[in-house]
């Protein structure tokens, strides 16, 4: 029997008996072959003894069962680690942050409690995946859309409390921001509802986010202060039409007006679809086209073009720019999309062109006009998540093809947030490419463009490979931590990270001698005095593990 650290066999046996009593014996897992299912498929410690593994797993099917499990864990001081569906690969998967914890697997809590079409919201349990919610909406012919990540197999609740993002309209893409109301089992087993849900017989739990008094929802995301058992989400009313366009700009210096104009247009909601910055001249694809490039290869490039790319610094050389101007290949290309009534999005596109026409040489092109709704088959012609359709196609990114001859065994996402300016893109490329080169890290090898998932900021989401070679993985882990530190020295921090890097990331958030972490620890000690819940998640350790914790 694997034992959680610091727990006697007697206590663990007694706790397992209580778990079995709570959820039924068939939903408590202790055999190695079952526990293997909870390993992180992309573990940065693949084939190494430091890999974080579970000592057992328990799968409750209701809030009451979660409460019973949490109370049992408290009685025997068993470290438990809740997961929803465990699909956040690249950010830790289903493996516990503190090795030897018991995984509290919530995937059996998969009820869609309500989808309200007229008020455009859903209330779901943590085991509900984006596919589940999409299927429910389709089967019931409801005129609402979900916003889903890519791939869309994960939990709606899990992705939100990990602060993941999607691809539709601005106000739905940040999944935690688009939530409205939570139900949480606290570490002592008590049940809490946030926002308007704190009113017995609440009538607006999913319509008004903040309730009255301190708004505590945020402390239950990327944390270890409670087990979220229900969560409300605002949904997007099904739009009438979709328009996708490109704005192409010819010169390197045009990156500045591109970003500034995009910011104005998005902040003013003149454009609200997923903005996607590409560089045809550098050969950098828009995120929405990466899949296609991987399947069919990148656009053809002449030998001269390829040769010129070898001479660029931070994506620029006068010769490359001259080649682009001569050949009609734009330096930058901004992909924009619009959702709404045709006459509205046409007007928005017109306004967009007017704003960008101030840039000399701007070229405008309509890529797709789509009358909605469309079915799943038609959505496959596009990047499905931009139509609120979940997909698994992203997994061919890891597939071996002539354009990807040596796919990795997994990846760790390096995801720093930087300001939404052209200067920040260039500075981040300079800083990270120099650091990555010195560290031998396969990141920022060429000029890298950020994603626009979240409003008001950019995020780089870069895959650092996990290989089958422990020595290479160790080098990448150390390099990854160093890049986090380098980013912090420049005022940039990760928005999310895998457990192995959570200490390094949280160390960057050190204003006033670590006041934020001290506050987290104060909360932890008050809310979870026995330290049973997700020890070490985002480097929040319970008091008894605070000294000498692993990370």
């Amino acid at each position: 029997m694997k034992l959680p650290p610091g727990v006697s066999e007697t206590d663990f046996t007694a706790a397992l008996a209580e778990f079995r009593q709570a959820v039924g014996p068939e939903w408590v897992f202790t055999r190695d072959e079952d526990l293997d299912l909870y390993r992180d498929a992309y573990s940065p410690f693949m084939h190494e003894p430091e890999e974080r593994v579970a000592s057992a797993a328990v799968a409750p099917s209701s809030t009451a069962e979660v409460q019973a499990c949490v109370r049992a864990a408290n009685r025997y001081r068993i470290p438990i680690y809740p997961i929803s569906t465990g699909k956040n690969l690249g950010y830790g998967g289903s493996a516990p942050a503190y090795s030897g914890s018991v995984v509290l697997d919530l995937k059996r809590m998969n009820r869609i409690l309500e989808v309200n079409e007229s008020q455009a919201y859903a209330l779901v349990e943590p085991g509900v995946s984006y596919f589940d919610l999409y299927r429910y909406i389709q089967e019931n012919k409801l005129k609402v859309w979900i916003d889903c990540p890519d791939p869309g197999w994960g939990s709606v609740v899990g992705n939100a409390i990990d602060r993941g993002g999607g691809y539709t309209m601005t106000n739905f893409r940040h999944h935690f921001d688009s939530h409205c109301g939570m139900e949480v089992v606290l570490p002592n087993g008590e049940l809490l509802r946030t926002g308007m849900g704190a009113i017995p017989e609440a009538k607006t739990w999913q319509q008004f986010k903040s309730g009255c008094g301190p708004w505590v929802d945020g402390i239950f995301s990327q944390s270890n202060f409670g087990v979220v058992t229900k969560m409300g989400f605002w949904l997007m009313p099904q739009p009438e039409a979709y328009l996708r366009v490109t704005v192409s700009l010819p010169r390197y210096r045009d990156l500045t007006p591109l970003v500034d104009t995009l910011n104005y247009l998005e902040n003013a909601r003149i454009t609200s679809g997923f903005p996607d910055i590409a560089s045809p001249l550098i050969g950098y694809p828009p995120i929405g086209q990466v899949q296609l490039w991987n399947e069919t290869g990148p656009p053809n490039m002449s030998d001269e073009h390829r040769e010129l790319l070898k001479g660029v610094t931070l994506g620029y050389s006068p010769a490359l720019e001259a080649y682009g101007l001569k050949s009609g290949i734009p330096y930058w290309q901004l992909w924009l999309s619009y959702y709404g009534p045709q006459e509205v999005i046409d007007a928005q596109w017109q306004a967009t062109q007017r704003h960008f026409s101030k840039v000399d040489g701007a070229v405008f092109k309509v890529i797709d006009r789509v009358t909605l709704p469309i079915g799943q088959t038609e959505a496959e012609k596009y990047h499905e998540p931009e139509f609120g359709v979940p997909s698994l196609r992203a997994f061919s990114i890891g597939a071996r093809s002539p354009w990807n001859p040596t796919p990795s065994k997994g990846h760790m996402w390096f995801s720093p947030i930087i300001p939404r300016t052209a200067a920040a893109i260039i500075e981040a490329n300079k800083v990270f490419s120099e650091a990555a080169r010195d560290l031998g890290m396969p990141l920022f090898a060429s000029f890298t463009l950020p994603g626009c998932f979240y409003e008001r900021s950019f995020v780089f989401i870069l895959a650092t490979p996990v290989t089958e070679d422990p020595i290479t993985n160790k080098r990448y882990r150390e390099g990854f931590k160093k890049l986090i530190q380098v980013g912090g020295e420049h005022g940039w921090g990760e928005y999310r990270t895998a457990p192995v890097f959570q200490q390094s990331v949280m160390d960057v958030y050190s204003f006033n001698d670590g006041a934020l972490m001290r506050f987290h620890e104060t909360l932890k000690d008050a809310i979870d005095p026995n330290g049973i819940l997700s020890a070490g998640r985002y480097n929040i350790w319970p008091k008894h593990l605070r000294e000498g914790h692993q990370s």
Partner: protein
Amino acid sequence: MMNRRDFCLRGAALSAGAGGLLAAGGWPGAMDFDKVIFDTRFAASRAWAAAVRGPLGERAGVAGDITRLWFEQLSPRWRAGRILLAGMTTPATLFCLEQLAKDHWQRVVLRIEHHESIAGPVHHRVSGDGHSVVRAARHLERARSWPGAAAAAVASFDRRPHDNTARQLMRVSPSLRASAPSTLVSWIIA
């Protein structure tokens, strides 16, 4: 919903009652898969699917992406209980299915990686429990066509509990003259 114990017993019963399947054109001890999945883009995978004929299960071709297959066919079946799948696909497709199988506490129980180069032999890496690996390796040793051998190895997988110790064996077969290097994998999810 069928629980894990019932499922294992079902598998054992299927293996034990293989005589009928043999008469119908399968292999001794042939499994009854809920779905047999192959990748239409690869000749070897198509050949494998052609070899997995008869009553072994409905065949489904994919071109890498399993979204539709999973959403329309596998997921509804999985919601009704555990299912038994076999396939020859890319590793990425298998990875995807493997992660989805975890949602139902199911796993890959036999995995045969086929590494094919343009000129040269095909290297097979067989992983699973000791008993299954030895059986599968024997099929690969005898065969003139490795996709057919892989199909036989999958189809005659013995679900009865044997040696549960994980094991790997390597085998080599003549090439099918691949037009491009590829890695495919034959597998069973149970």
